[in-house]
């Protein structure tokens, strides 16, 4: 008789419920995901493959076939030799311009916006709400409206076509969204912490640098990702507020790809495009995890 009860126990449901791996649900779920992933990755694949081919191979017209003879010549040419107008030193010039634009713009805009956000969230000064409303309003005004007035402003300041002028523009346009981001993050930090710091004798800057900032690394990461990608990928402001010698990488890329003279060097164009996209891509991969954490912070308590 004990034997019988044992078998019965064995058949009773116990522990985790067994699941089939090849169930209908899984096939549909993973099938869709894989299909969509391939769909999105095909253009990237074509770009990489094309950039590694020589022109004779491209002329055969098989864009999906892998290169028979792998060559890095187009990459070298895109970086160092491609011509835009009279300059034939490739994308490298634009790359360094972009670096010179992006680093100060990111740094200055985040520094100012985080202090703005901190002041708005924690120090309820007179007119704070009005100031905040104006900032938010700024986030909804189309850029195009402000382009011409800003040209005149920069001209009068003597900064038109110069890099500092463009840096100023990027800082201004980053302000509404970044301030909003920082303000919302700082409001999620318990108010008692701020009060405790005041009782402990820390002032405006003391609290900012020694209490708030060390607690806000995720949101700083988010701001850096947003700003680096945004400013690096910017084309419009770059083409309007600078001159050819100061063109950022994106503008130069356009000039290389869209040049109407001579042979269309598809492999060089692909390589140049990939080179330009490398920086935001790298930033994303490095900080992807922090990015998600920062965006989601405050959404759930704890």
């Amino acid at each position, binding site marked *: 008789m004990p034997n019988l009860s044992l078998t019965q126990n064995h058949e009773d449901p116990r522990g985790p419920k067994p699941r089939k791996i090849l169930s209908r649900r899984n096939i549909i779920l993973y099938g869709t995901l894989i299909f969509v992933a391939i769909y999105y990755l095909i253009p990237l694949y074509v770009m990489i493959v094309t950039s590694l081919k020589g022109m004779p191979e491209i002329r055969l017209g098989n864009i999906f076939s892998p290169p028979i003879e792998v060559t890095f010549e187009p990459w070298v040419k895109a970086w160092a030799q491609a011509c835009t107008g009279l300059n034939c030193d490739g994308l490298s010039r634009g790359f360094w311009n972009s670096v010179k634009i992006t680093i100060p713009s990111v740094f200055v805009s985040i520094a100012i916006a985080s202090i703005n956000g901190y002041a708005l969230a924690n120090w309820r000064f007179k007119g704070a709400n009005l100031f905040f409303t104006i900032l938010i309003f700024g986030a909804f005004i189309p850029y195009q409206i402000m382009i011409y007035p800003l040209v005149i402003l920069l001209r009068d300041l003597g900064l038109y076509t110069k890099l500092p002028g463009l840096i100023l523009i990027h800082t201004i346009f980053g302000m509404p969204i970044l301030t909003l981001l920082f303000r919302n993050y700082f409001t999620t930090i318990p108010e*008692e912490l701020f009060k*405790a*710091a005041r*009782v*402990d*004798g*820390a002032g405006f800057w003391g609290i900012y640098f020694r209490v708030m900032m060390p*607690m806000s690394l995720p949101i700083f990461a988010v701001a850096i990702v947003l700003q680096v990608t945004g400013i690096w990928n910017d084309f419009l402001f770059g083409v309007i507020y600078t001159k050819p010698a100061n063109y950022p990488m994106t503008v130069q890329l356009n000039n290389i790809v869209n040049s109407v003279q001579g042979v269309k060097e598809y492999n060089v164009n692909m390589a140049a495009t990939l080179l330009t996209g490398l920086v935001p891509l790298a930033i994303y991969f490095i900080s992807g995890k922090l990015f998600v954490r920062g965006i989601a912070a405050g959404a759930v308590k704890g």
Partner: protein
Amino acid sequence: MNSIEIKKLSLNFGEVVVLKDLNLTIEKGEFLVLLGASGCGKSTLLNCIAGLLDVTDGQIFINGQNVTWLEPSQRGIGMVFQSYALYPQMTVKGNLSFSLKNAKLSKDEIEKRVQNASEILQIEDLLNRKPAALSGGQRQRVAIGRALVRDVEVFLFDEPLSNLDAKLRTDLRVEIKRLHQKLDNTMIYVTHDQIEAMTLADRIAIMRDGLILQLDDPKTIYNFPVNKYVAEFIGSPGMNLLKGAILPNDKPIFKLDGGWCESPDLSNYKFYEPIKTETQAWLGIRPENVVFGDDAKNMPVKFSLEVEVVEPMGANTLVWSKMGGQEFRFMVDGNTTLSIGERVTVGFDPVHSSVFDLDSEDRL
């Protein structure tokens, strides 16, 4: 000498009046508890004293100095918050020394004070840990330590034990009391927990709608509440309140609505003013003051009741029943066995009761 003096303090948030014309004097070394339900303005008052909120009108003096316009750090106060509010990226030592560094004290002095505070609070072993690696009780101790190192005259506690579990709360409560006996600082303590208030306070200020209803030592508040609100707020289980009328005969008696076998004689009750006309009133009797069984026979007022619900609480058992249709609770010894529906005799002495006017709800 007075440690804290608050004169005609008012605070409005726009249209909302939070504190009205509030006066309060706290002596040196006194432990004052601000007690009230949430939204009564007790935390707001504490924040005003700390200087974390600008007042609308009135003055605050600490140690004879007018601090109304001073920054929190200049007022000679230390504050402990409900959520501990420890700086998460700093070690315990960093948390303790933060204010001292801001005050630009010498390294030796900082070291000495941190050492001293951590000894008093028994957190020496935790100095190099981050707050995340501490338990709730340890965190709260560090938070107290942060106030302690500042060597201030006045300690402000904003519901410091509310985030802890029940067992820890009672332990830390005693520790706070010991700390007060040792340091002899002035302490102001905000809580909504009446047990904390009763156990800790030299005096309790019961607040409601931005006003202090009663400011007295715990015993007086417990035995002689000035109005029905205070009477109901203090004491657990709450006071029995029976609706009826006082008849001013040669001896004032209380006539219960819905009948009573015997109307209690209130001639021994100390009325503020003699009752001259028939007055609608509440008669309040604490469940602890009701006696049961043989002892009831010696009481001036005795009657029999039917047991409806029995709640054993260990040392005592709370019995629920009805008196002329109105709820009536009383305490019996924990070892007493009572069955539902049983009729029992209980009694009380009207001297230990409280009588409140039906409309104004003030003590008569």
